[in-house]
């Protein structure tokens, strides 16, 4: 069910309870848990330490199955990594490097100007390795799901054994937040899936929060700049509105 917020908003008043009840989501336990995000609200910014830990998880876990084709290694500057760190990260993977003098395709170490390396050469290979399901590209995944960061977080922590009366398809996992509750992705994160270097305790909740912060940054790397610009522009416009209104009052004072 896709919600159209504006129409909803206005309509809430107009239509009242009857319809709301008929369209409400079924069970309460599929309601997304509320998470405090560093990047929510008009002044929110990304918690860079969390985003860096999230990148570590992406690197060690998610990137085994998920591509992130819109990002370049150089973009990692945005989560506060230094040039040296970025060079080292890029150099740690082999990327296609064109052809050699005999026309044979070659591999070379990555550079900051390279796209993130994809785990599979094409969708078919990705499906073949994942029991027929395609792990979606993660570049804008945070924007591509209803619920955004809250949903991604819920998905990470929503795995459990299926209810007794549920018939699971072969190879499918139970996740109470996934539409239909049967997901082809095995639970990617558990307590202690990664070793954090900054002393943070790698609980499942902490890992989920960190990787989602990283995914949110990846989807909207411009967000902090955007909000900061927005604050200035809105303050300016408020001032301009006040001035214009004062001029209008003055000009019209002899009319009424």
């Amino acid at each position, binding site marked *: *069910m896709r919600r*159209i917020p504006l129409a909803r908003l206005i309509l809430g008043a107009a239509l009242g309870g009857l319809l709301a009840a008929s369209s409400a989501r079924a069970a309460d336990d599929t309601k997304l848990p509320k998470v405090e995000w560093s990047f929510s609200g008009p002044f929110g910014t990304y918690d860079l330490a969390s985003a860096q830990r999230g990148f570590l998880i992406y690197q060690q876990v998610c990137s085994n199955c998920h591509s992130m084709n819109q990002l370049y290694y150089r973009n990692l500057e945005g989560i506060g990594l230094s040039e040296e760190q970025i060079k080292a990260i890029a150099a740690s993977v082999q990327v296609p490097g064109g052809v050699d003098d005999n026309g044979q395709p070659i591999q070379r170490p990555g550079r900051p100007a390279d796209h993130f390396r994809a785990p599979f050469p094409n969708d078919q290979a990705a499906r073949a390795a994942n029991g027929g399901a395609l792990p979606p590209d993660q570049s804008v995944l945070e924007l591509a799901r209803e619920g*955004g960061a809250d949903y991604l977080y819920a998905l990470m922590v929503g795995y459990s054994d299926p209810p007794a009366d549920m018939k699971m398809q072969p190879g499918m996992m139970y996740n109470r937040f996934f539409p239909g509750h049967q997901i082809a992705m095995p639970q990617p994160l558990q307590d202690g899936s990664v070793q954090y270097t900054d002393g943070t305790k790698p609980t499942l909740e902490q890992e989920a929060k960190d990787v989602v912060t990283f995914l949110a940054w990846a989807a909207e790397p411009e967000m902090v700049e955007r909000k900061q610009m927005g604050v200035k522009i809105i303050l300016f416009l408020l001032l301009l509105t006040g001035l214009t209104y004062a001029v209008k009052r003055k000009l019209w004072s002899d009319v009424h």
Partner: protein
Amino acid sequence: MVGLHKSEFKNPLVRWIDTRLPVFTMMQNEYGSFPTPRNFNYFWNFGALAMVAMMIMIITGIFLAMNYVPNTALAFDSVERIMRDVNYGWLIRYVHMNGASMFFVVVYIHIFRGLYYGSYKTPRELLWMLGVVILLLMMMTAFMGYVLPWGQMSYWGATVITNLFSAFPIVGKSIVTWLWGGFSVDNPTLNRFFSLHYLLPFVIVAVVFLHVAALHITGSNNPLGIEPKGPQDTLPFHPYYTVKDSVGICVFLIVYAALVFFAPNFLGNPDNYIPANPMVTPAEIVPEWYLLPYYAILRSVPNKLGGVLMMFGSILVLFVLPWLDTSPVRSARFRPIFRQLVLLLVIDVIVLGDVGAHRPEGWWVVVGRLATTYYFLFFLVLLPVVGKLERPLKLPDSISKPVLGGGGPLPGGAPAKPMEKA
């Protein structure tokens, strides 16, 4: 010298141009001294706001087009490139994307203003009809623009909407193939949509020009719906309404900026951040919010052709509105029954919008059908009948009377000219 225009401008350069091509005189007459009813409320801002929105769309669109690639393999990535690698590309795109919504909000309020105050009545019928042409062009432009980023909703929206034409008997299938430029929505479709999405805004500009030209022949309507009787009823457009419009533009920009900078994807559909995939149908295919009421009408009719005809009919009926309304009184202020009915129509259209956002199941079907019925009932039955039966309130003698509380002296700084145009 024969043929040179007599210019009143003093500046030698301006005068030189104006005597040969009197654009300055025209601007002075149409936007400077133009006699405008003195009693406008803030609803009269929305024409100017639509003009601003249109200009913003064209400017941002031209910059987007410099970096956008109309090819099914590259379109989605090119939009992401605009967002990430083009300097301030995210700003340009978010301004364009939310600009479409702002444009429609403003135009819908503008249309409501016309309905409520009877601006479509004699002598402004053609002015009104040109407005409906603009609305149609806007809908086509926005629909094709939404296809360009080539996300899931772009692709499936295009498929569903173009497929509507297949409902027409005999020629339907051929029309659809012709629209697609092939046997499915594909690269040729994307290319022609891009071409038309670039073209149509300039057609809109041309029709807006005619719309404004027609306005300056009849003069503006006003909240009382009675014609100005003389200079005491009007004010020169500048500075009175230039400054009042400026206040409106500032407020408009604040709302617009709040969307662009703090909730740029609030009105969008998350599915459009998934690249188009002809093999996977989204759970729910919905158009952008501003097209939802028409979509609801389409889906409220059990028969496909019937639904398509009703959907087009819901806009076409606006063309004949001036002849459906039989009341000589313009403003709803003096039409107690019409006033209730037209406000109910507003709620009705909002309900239709919400219905359009939901799967046509259960209660939504019932609500959709009721709302569709009222929509057409209002225009085709209630307007003609109520115009005849209703007893309007007594109209004021003139605009200045209720405003000034008497025939009224001229305000000091308002050198009102007689209505040259009317």
